[in-house]
C-alpha cells in the first residue's frame, strides 16, 4: 500500500460515511417555495391547498394516500378493513389502532384522546370547520383505550376512510387546542400558527402570508428522519418566479403548482438545474357560475340564495357560455402536456369519469348564438344581448396568475362573439383563496357573476367532494361564508344522490352515482369545466425522494426527502 492509496481510501471513506448512515438532519437545509403563502397551519380552519400542504409537514393524519392513491398507515399500525376486523361487518364503525410509543413534538405521548378531541373540534356545531364534509355521518368518536379509536357512523359507511385519512384531517393535540373549541377556534393564534404535531418538522417561526421556518421534530417516530435539519417554507410571489427560483437560479429546492405557460416552463427546465414533475389527479380548472345575485345593492344578502341571479339563473345562458368555449385551445395555450380536455368536474379516478357530456369538447359559437336567440336574448346595438332590460354583462373573477389571465382574455373574446360582455377582475391569490372573513374578494363570497379556479379532492373517494354541492354547503353570512358550494347550487335530486351514495357499498354502484351527480352538475351548467390539469411541480436536481402525489399533500413524504 502506498501512502497515496491509503489517503484515497480514507478520503473515500469520509465521503461515503454520511451516505451509509444517513441520519436526522444530515442533509442540512431545504428551501420550499409556494407562491401562495400559507396563512395558517390548521387545515380545519382553511380550505386552501397551500395551508393544508404547509401544515402536513407538522401535523399528520392517521393514514396518508401514497402517490398511487393507495392508503398507507401513518400513525396507525395498519389500515382497518372488513377483512382484518377493523371495519365492522355492518359498515357502521371503524377502529384505528395507534402505533405504540408515538410522541408529540413537545415530548408528550400521543393518545386516542387526541384523535377524539380532533373529531369533536371539527364537529363542533358553532365552529366553522372547513373539513366538516369529511366527518359526514360520524355520530361518535370514542377512545376504547389509550391507543384505540373507534369511529361510529349513523348509517352503514361503505367508504369509512373520511376522517383522519389524508392531509386535510390531521390529528391535533388535545392539550394545545383545549381552549379553541367552536367559535374560539380562529382566535387561538398561537395554536393555529405553531401547532404541536407528530410530523417530521416543527414550526420555529411563523410569519403569516410570508415565511415559515421549521426544524426537524426531535421526537419524530423514525430516528433517522427527516434528513433535513431545517426547512424554510417560503410563500408569495408568483408561479413564474417560483419556477425560476428552482429551475434557473437554484435558490429553492421545490416549487409547487407551477401554473405558467408551457413554453416558458420547458425553456426553464432546459437550464438543467431542476426537473419538472407532473401527475394527473382530479384537479379541474373550472368556471363556477353564480346562481345568485352578487349586486351590491343587496348588502348583506349579496350572493345569497335569497336573490336569484338576473340572467345566470336561465340555463340557456349558462349553456351558451359553456358552448362558446374551445377547451382544446385552452389546454394548448395554458398547460401543454400538463392539461387535458374535460367535460366533467370529476374526471378521475378513471372509474368515475363520465362520458355523457363529451359534447362540450367541440366549440359551437353558432349554436350558442342560436340558443340565446331562441331563449329571447336579443342582440343590442352595442353587441350585447339583452332581454327585458337585463343585459348579458358579467364580472369574471379569478386569482392573479398569468395562465388564468390568459384564459380570461380568450374566454372574454369567445363570450363577446355570443353577445356577452365580460369584465375581468383578478385578485391576489392569497386573498382570493385566503378565506378572510373581512375581505370581499374571497372565492367563497363570490361577489362576481362567474369565477374561475381549480379544485380537487384528496384521497381517491369522491363522496365528500361531490357532497360539496349540496344545498347545505352553500356559503352564506350565516355560516361565516364557509362551504364549497360556490355556484349556490341547490337541487333536491342532487342531495338525494349524495345521500344514496353515502349508503352504497358496491364500488361500481358508487361510480354510477358519482357519475350521475357529475352529469347533473354538468347538464345544469352550474359548473363549467375547462381543463383537467396535472399537478406540475419543480424540484432541484439535488433533491431526492420527491414523489409527486396527486391524491394527498405535495409534501406528504417530506420526511423521506434528502440531499443527493
Amino acid at each position, binding site marked *: 500500500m502506498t501512502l497515496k492509496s491509503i489517503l484515497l481510501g480514507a478520503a473515500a471513506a469520509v465521503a461515503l460515511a454520511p451516505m451509509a448512515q444517513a441520519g436526522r438532519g444530515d442533509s442540512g437545509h431545504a428551501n420550499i417555495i409556494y407562491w401562495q403563502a400559507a396563512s395558517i397551519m390548521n387545515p380545519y380552519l382553511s380550505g386552501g391547498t397551500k395551508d393544508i400542504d404547509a401544515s402536513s409537514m407538522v401535523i399528520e393524519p392517521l393514514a396518508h394516500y401514497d402517490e398511487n392513491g393507495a392508503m398507507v398507515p401513518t400513525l396507525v399500525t395498519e389500515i382497518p378493513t372488513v377483512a382484518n376486523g377493523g371495519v365492522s361487518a355492518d359498515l357502521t364503525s371503524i377502529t384505528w389502532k395507534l402505533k405504540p410509543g408515538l410522541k408529540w413534538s413537545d415530548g408528550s405521548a400521543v393518545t386516542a384522546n387526541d384523535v377524539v378531541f380532533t373529531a369533536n373540534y371539527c364537529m363542533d356545531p358553532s365552529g366553522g370547520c372547513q373539513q366538516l364534509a369529511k366527518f359526514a355521518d360520524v355520530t361518535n368518536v370514542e377512545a376504547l383505550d389509550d391507543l384505540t379509536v373507534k369511529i361510529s357512523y349513523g348509517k352503514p359507511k361503505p367508504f369509512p376512510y373520511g376522517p383522519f385519512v389524508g392531509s386535510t384531517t390531521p390529528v391535533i393535540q388535545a392539550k394545545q387546542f383545549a381552549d379553541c373549541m367552536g367559535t374560539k377556534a380562529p382566535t387561538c393564534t398561537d395554536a393555529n400558527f405553531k401547532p404541536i404535531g407528530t410530523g417530521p418538522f416543527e414550526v420555529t417561526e411563523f410569519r403569516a402570508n410570508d415565511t415559515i421556518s421549521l426544524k426537524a421534530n426531535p421526537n419524530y417516530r423514525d430516528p433517522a428522519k427527516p434528513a433535513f435539519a431545517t426547512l424554510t417554507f417560503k410563500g408569495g410571489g408568483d408561479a*413564474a418566479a417560483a419556477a425560476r427560483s428552482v429551475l434557473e437560479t437554484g435558490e429553492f429546492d421545490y416549487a409547487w403548482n407551477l401554473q405558467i*405557460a408551457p413554453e*416558458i416552463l420547458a425553456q426553464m427546465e432546459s437550464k438543467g438545474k431542476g426537473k419538472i414533475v407532473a401527475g394527473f389527479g382530479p384537479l379541474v380548472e373550472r368556471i363556477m357560475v353564480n346562481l345568485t345575485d352578487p349586486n*351590491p345593492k343587496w348588502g348583506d344578502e349579496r350572493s345569497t340564495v335569497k336573490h336569484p341571479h338576473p340572467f345566470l339563473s336561465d340555463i340557456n345562458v349558462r349553456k351558451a357560455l359553456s358552448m362558446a368555449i374551445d377547451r382544446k385551445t385552452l389546454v394548448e395555450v395554458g398547460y401543454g402536456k400538463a392539461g387535458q380536455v374535460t367535460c366533467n368536474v370529476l374526471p378521475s379516478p378513471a372509474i368515475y369519469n363520465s362520458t355523457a357530456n363529451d359534447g362540450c369538447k367541440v366549440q359551437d359559437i353558432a349554436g350558442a348564438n342560436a340558443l340565446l336567440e331562441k331563449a329571447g336574448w336579443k342582440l343590442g346595438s352595442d353587441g350585447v344581448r339583452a332581454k327585458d332590460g337585463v343585459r348579458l354583462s358579467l364580472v369574471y373573477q379569478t386569482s392573479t396568475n398569468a395562465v388564468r389571465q*390568459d384564459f*380570461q382574455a*380568450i374566454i372574454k373574446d369567445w363570450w363577446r362573439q355570443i353577445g356577452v360582455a365580460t*369584465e*375581468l377582475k383578478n385578485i391576489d391569490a392569497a386573498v382570493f383563496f385566503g378565506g378572510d372573513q373581512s375581505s370581499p374578494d374571497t372565492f367563497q363570497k363570490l361577489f362576481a357573476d362567474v369565477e374561475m379556479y381549480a379544485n380537487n379532492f384528496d384521497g381517491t373517494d369522491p363522496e365528500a367532494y361531490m357532497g360539496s354541492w349540496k344545498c347545505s354547503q352553500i356559503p352564506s353570512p350565516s355560516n361565516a361564508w364557509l362551504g364549497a358550494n360556490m355556484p349556490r347550487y341547490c337541487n333536491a335530486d342532487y342531495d338525494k344522490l349524495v345521500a344514496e351514495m353515502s349508503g352504497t357499498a358496491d364500488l361500481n354502484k358508487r361510480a354510477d352515482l358519482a357519475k350521475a351527480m357529475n352529469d347533473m352538475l354538468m347538464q345544469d351548467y352550474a359548473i363549467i369545466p375547462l381543463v383537467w390539469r396535472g399537478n406540475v411541480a419543480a424540484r432541484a436536481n439535488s433533491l431526492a425522494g420527491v414523489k409527486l402525489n396527486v391524491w394527498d399533500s405535495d409534501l406528504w413524504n417530506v420526511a423521506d426527502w434528502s440531499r443527493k
Partner: protein
Amino acid sequence: MTDLNTNPIGEIERITVSENPRSQWWDVWAQFKTHKGAVLGMTFFVLIILLVLIGPYIWTLAPDRPDLLARNKGPSMGHPLGTDQLGRDSLAQMLAGGRISLAVGVVAMTLSLVVGSLVGVLAGYFKRLDGMLMRFTDLFLALPLLPLLLVIIMLFRDTLRAAFGLEAGIFILIVFVIGITSWMQTARIVRGDVLALKEQEFVLAARSIGTPPWRMIMRHILPNVMSPIMVSATLGIANAIITESALSFLGLGFPSDFPTWGRLLFDSTNFMTLSPERVIWPGLAISLTVLSVNYMGDGLRDALDPRIRGR
C-alpha cells in the same frame, strides 16, 4: 466728419419701434430653446402624445382581440412589434396602453399640483395656517404609500365602478390615489419659496398700497413660484406613470385586459427569455417618456427663473 451728422439715438429708437414688445413668455421660450435636451425632450413627448392619440385610428387592430393562430410571433409586416402569448398585437396594445398611462400621468400630476400648490401657498402666506397645514403634510409624508394604495383600491373599487362604470371608475380611483399621495413635495417646496418671497420689498410695496391677500397671491406670489411648480409638474408626470406601472405590475389597478405600459411590462416579464422585445417596447416607452418629461422640466425651470434667463 459727416458721420457725426447721423444721430445714433434715432437709429436705436427706430429699431425699438419696429419690433413688437417682448412678452415674458416669449423670453421664456427663447431661453427654453437654448436648452437642447429640453427641446429634444419636448419634441419626443409631443410625438408620443400624437402617436397614442392618432395611432389607434391608423393602426386599427383591436388591442384585446386574441388571435390564437399568431401567438408569440416576432415583428413582421402584419404585426410590426410582434404579438403576445395570445396573439394580441403588441403595437395596438402599446398605443392603447400609452393613452391610459399618459392620461393617468397628466391628470394625476394636475391633481397633485393643484393640491400641492394650494397647500404650499396657503401655508407660506398665512402664518396661522402654516403649522396645521405643514403637520398635515408631514402626516401624509409619513403614510406608507403602497399599503395605503392597496387599502384604498380594495375599499373603493366596487363603489366607484358602480357609480362611474368600469373604465372611468378605475381611472378616477387610480388618478385620485396617485394624486393624493404625491402632492407633499410640491407643497413643501412652494411653501419655502413663498416664505422667502413674502419678505421681499416688492411684496412690502404691494401690501403698503393695500393689495388684498387674494390679489397678492395671484398677482405677485404665484407667478414667482411658477418655476418650482413647473418642475414638480414634470417630475409628477413621470412619478405618476411609474406609480401606475407599479400598481399594474402588482396586478392591482386596471383589469388584466386593459393594457397600460406598466401592465404590458408585467405580463411580458414571464416571456422575457422567449421574446425579449416584448419587455423592451413598454420599458423603453416608459423610460423615454419619463426622461423626456424630466428634460422638459429641467429646461422649463431654467427658462422660468428670471435670474438664470438670458445667461
